[in-house]
């Protein structure tokens, strides 16, 4: 098992562009996705300006947006709807999923299981480039006549069927992105099942690997229905079919020329069949990253590792039968609502088990407060808020009042923005030394943590109050004309200022990221005194196949910290010293 294949030096294009090395592909994914994350964030800043100051010209950049979008710098409702749809699409499909699966999964799954590369390197390369094409299509769609897609990131027909050309681009882009995710997920599943180092049994896998395994199954099984649905909607738009259009629609006073007989609800079922498991695709790898960081920085094993693994698998299964809780108000019927609200309550149980296990893991630990740990600690209450606020939405009667209000926006952003994105930051600070051989600046890192933590809450906290008051989402003027919004609409300015400051809080990170690549403190292979196999590989591992000088053999579980009787406070998985008997 301990032979390492020799590779001749590769040319520039093979090495850095069309690379088949999992580390290069992971970095390509990571950098592209971070750029999209920033871009999607900027779209949101434009929206936040409009919500705080409806009808006032956007300062400085307002003039650059073009007269079709913002004549005189004042945003039009058409443009607001584009920003809304594209912010959601870009953040989810081009930002967060490619980061947690494409970047972290690609780079660290092989390292953590002691594999020389992914099982299918060429499939891996294809996965990135298909994603890249999907991203380019989405980006370019802003420049089409009528602009980008404007029917929400959910693209409900018939609105999306009759929308401008941007919607066609959106659908094409989605087909590429889904294909890319499928290729990536097959690869991760095969790699984890086939390429684990000797001795790395399933119950010795780091929790991060478990989270990637379950996530990949979700991607593999949930995405194809949306790919099919996307193609059906493309046909509706381009080939005159009516999969999602009933007969006799009248748009702008004209009876629509369509065959008819389709169902708008069919799209919603297909969409949410993907998009609910998608939520767990966003959150599970984040929990995986946080688990690694917490175990490492409390210097003790995770509490309830087994319970967490079982809960994750359970969560994965359950996530396929909760999708219609997004559809309680569509008129799909009470039998459906009863079933889906029951399954939704059941799925809250494993989530609580995982989160509480992470919380109890802090108990009795000797905590090191470095930047990754601060982000991981901030993740816990943020995801907690996101999860708990989901309960009233999961029950059909309370959902009546809260559905499609800002409460929903607050809820899922707490899960994904201060939740998953904090975990992503924790992961970047944590693994940066492995990737570059240098540590990121702690001082700048702490400015980044505290700034993000405070302003994230400033942006999303008031949304719950707006939603409870009944303010609807997706309103161009933020609901200013409704009397029920009057007690809470003034929060919009506070929230927008928080969003602008949140942007400023990211600048230290961006600077830190590039500065530390060249100037950061140089570190060895295992700067955090960690136990998993990724830290056994050379830091800044050579690009090209082969991660380990010698393929490691695994002797024990993933988090053997502070083992009694052992000199160091960590005992790596690949070190052959016998561990003392566990109590």
């Amino acid at each position: 098992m301990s032979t390492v294949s020799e590779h001749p030096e590769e040319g520039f294009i093979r090495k850095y562009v069309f690379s088949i090395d999992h580390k290069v592909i992971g970095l390509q994914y990571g950098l592209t996705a971070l750029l999209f994350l920033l871009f999607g964030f900027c779209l949101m800043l434009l929206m936040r300006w409009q919500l705080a100051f409806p009808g006032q010209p956007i300062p400085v950049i307002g003039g650059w947006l073009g007269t079709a979008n913002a004549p005189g710098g004042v945003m039009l409702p058409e443009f607001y709807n584009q920003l809304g749809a594209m912010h959601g699409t870009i953040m989810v499909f081009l930002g967060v999923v490619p980061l947690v699966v494409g970047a972290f999964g690609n780079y660290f799954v092989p390292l953590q299981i002691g594999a020389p590369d992914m099982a299918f390197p060429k499939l891996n390369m294809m996965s990135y480039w298909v994603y890249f094409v999907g991203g380019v299509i989405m980006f370019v769609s802003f420049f089409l006549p009528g602009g980008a897609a404007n029917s929400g990131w959910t693209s409900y027909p018939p609105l999306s069927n009759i929308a401008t050309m941007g919607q066609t681009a959106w659908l094409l882009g989605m087909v590429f992105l889904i294909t890319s995710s499928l290729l990536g997920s097959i690869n991760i599943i095969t790699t984890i099942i086939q390429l684990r180092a000797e001795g790395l049994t399933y119950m010795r896998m780091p929790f991060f690997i478990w989270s990637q395994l379950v996530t990949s199954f979700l991607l593999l099984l949930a995405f194809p229905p949306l790919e099919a649905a996307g193609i059906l909607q493309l046909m509706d738009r381009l080939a005159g079919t009516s999969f999602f259009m009933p007969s006799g629609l009248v748009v702008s006073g004209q009876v629509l020329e369509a065959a008819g007989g389709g169902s708008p609800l069919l799209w919603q079922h297909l969409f949410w069949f993907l998009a609910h498991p998608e939520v767990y695709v966003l959150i599970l790898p984040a929990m995986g990253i946080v688990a690694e960081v917490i175990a490492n920085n409390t210097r003790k094993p995770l509490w309830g590792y087994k319970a967490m693994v079982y809960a994750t698998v359970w969560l994965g299964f359950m996530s396929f039968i909760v999708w219609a809780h997004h559809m309680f108000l569509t008129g799909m019927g009470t039998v459906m609502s009863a079933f889906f609200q029951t399954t939704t309550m059941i799925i809250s149980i494993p989530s609580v088990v995982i989160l509480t296990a992470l919380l109890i893991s802090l108990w009795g630990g000797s905590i090191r407060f470095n930047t990754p740990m601060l982000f991981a600690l901030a993740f816990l209450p943020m995801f907690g808020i996101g999860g708990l606020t989901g309960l009233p939405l999961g029950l059909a009667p309370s959902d009546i009042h809260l559905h499609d209000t800002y409460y929903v926006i607050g809820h899922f952003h707490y899960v994904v923005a201060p939740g998953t994105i904090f975990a992503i930051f924790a992961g970047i600070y944590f693994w940066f030394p492995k990737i570059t051989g240098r540590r990121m600046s702690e001082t700048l890192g702490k400015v980044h943590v505290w700034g993000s933590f405070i302003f994230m809450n400033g942006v999303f906290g008031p949304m719950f109050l707006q939603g409870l008051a009944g303010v609807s989402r997706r309103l161009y003027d933020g609901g200013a004309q409704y009397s029920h919004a009057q007690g809470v609409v003034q929060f919009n300015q506070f929230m927008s200022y928080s969003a602008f400051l949140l942007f400023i809080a990211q600048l230290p990170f961006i600077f830190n990221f590039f500065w530390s690549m060249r100037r950061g403190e140089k570190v060895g292979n295992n700067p955090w005194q960690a136990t998993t196999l990724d830290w056994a590989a050379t830091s800044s591992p050579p690009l090209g196949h082969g991660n380990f000088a010698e393929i490691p053999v695994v002797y024990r579980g993933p988090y053997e910290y502070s083992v009694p009787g052992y000199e160091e406070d960590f005992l790596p998985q690949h070190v052959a010293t016998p561990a003392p008997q566990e109590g």
Partner: protein
Amino acid sequence: MPEKTAARSKLSIEGIILGLAIGLVGIVGVYYGSNNWRAPALASQHGAGIDAMMFYLVATTGSMFLIGHLILGYLIWNGSRQEKVTLRLASPKTEKFMSIALGVLMALIAEGGVVAIGMPVWDEYFMAETPEEALQIDVFAQQFAWNVRYPGPDGIFGRVDVSLIDEMSNPMGIDRSDAAAIDDVVVINQFFVPVDRPVEVTLRSRDVIHSLFLPNFRVKQDAVPGMSIPVVFVPTEEGRFEVACTELCGLGHYRMMGFFNVLSQGEFDDWLQQQYAGN
């Protein structure tokens, strides 16, 4: 057996600040939130049940949030003082017990709430038979208006045909050659109903999905093209309330606003008579 090692103090100021901050966030969040919870004034019968359920859920999740925050704050504060790990692992038995206890607790809170508070509201709102005396209202939503129709003295909605739709004179496509249609009354963006009488609103849409939202009545229902979806409720307060569209329906979505006027029986009869006279 849990393994104990002697703890030595290392005192991390940062950890203490973070621990305190986290605990404080929980307290301030719950306090500020509960003081600024401004639900729209209630004006329907079933709404009280929905509010009770919301209160139960917000109170239970709010308490879990608060307790979780205090524990987290304490653990961070405590963990910041210890040079060495004091509790490495609980025994497998404890772990198993606590995981199961957590699951059961969560199940009780969630499912318990559903059974005790949710089911009656559920029955009242979703499962209720439409009462005989319910006022029938037909809503045909469009971009970006609510077309509201009353059946007229005969109590029967006349035939409609989308090919008859005329934006100015006949937005619902009513076939006036049908005997039942002659007396139908159409109003735009305005609902008029008598107080304390059940209303059955049948929602249809002629173009895209809209959603009828009556914040004060705790009523929200999508209008899906190709479907007719009934909603039954009883307005209990007189007044002029707002109607919002709450499903993205295009560039005018934000201004798709209407009014829901709840009148006394006498006022309502007068209004209806005026409408009949206008036909």
